């Protein structure tokens, strides 16, 4: 399974765009990249998933370069309520969709 590396923490201010990058150098051909968000005392929640290029939904965008060895989660105009831990996962159906989480990135949004 591809190991992921993310920054431990990041600070931002309300209204800014935040980009969190995840490194996954040994990603496999069949792997998808998925991001989750977790608030304190809650379970993680799915944000976005992609395989290549760019994916956008109502919450975030996911940028994946051609070599797929990294990915960037982009959160537009963050608010205080976006303060959470963000996890990058890499995997796919070949491993029965087991979801392996790393330590995540703690995003702290300041007023």
């Amino acid at each position, binding site marked *: 399974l591809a190991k992921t590396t993310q920054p431990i923490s990041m600070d931002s201010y309300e209204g800014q765009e935040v980009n969190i990058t995840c490194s996954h150098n040994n990603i496999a051909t069949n792997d*998808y990249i998925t991001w989750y968000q977790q608030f304190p*005392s809650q379970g993680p929640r*799915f944000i976005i*998933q992609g395989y290549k290029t760019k994916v956008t939904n109502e919450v975030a965008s996911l940028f994946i370069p051609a070599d797929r060895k990294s990915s960037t989660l982009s959160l537009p105009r963050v608010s205080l309520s976006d303060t959470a831990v963000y996890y990058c996962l890499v995997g796919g*159906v070949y491993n*029965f969709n*087991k979801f392996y*989480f790393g330590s995540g990135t703690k995003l702290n949004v300041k007023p």
Partner: protein
Amino acid sequence: DVKVTQSSRYLVKRTGEKVFLECVQDMDHENMFWYRQDPGLGLRLIYFSYDVKMKEKGDIPEGYSVSREKKERFSLILESASTNQTSMYLCASSPDRYLNTEAFFGQGTRLTVV
């Protein structure tokens, strides 16, 4: 909305007790998972199940067992609780092992073993 319900939010048990953590999902999902979450270690997979009566070990199965007698219910069993099993336990489900779909999590059970 998918709902994953864990039977307790908080539990306090004594060392050596047999502990059952229950999880129920209401969306007919094939896959169910148990994780534990500790500060600085993120979420670690204990066991998962992709069908009734089927189970697979995750990264840290030692000291735990699981049971899945019905599709909607997945139980985590601590055979003899120890203080190093004090943790937040999270249950999750996902629709299908052959699709790249998301996992849905319960609210978690914070277990303290004294």
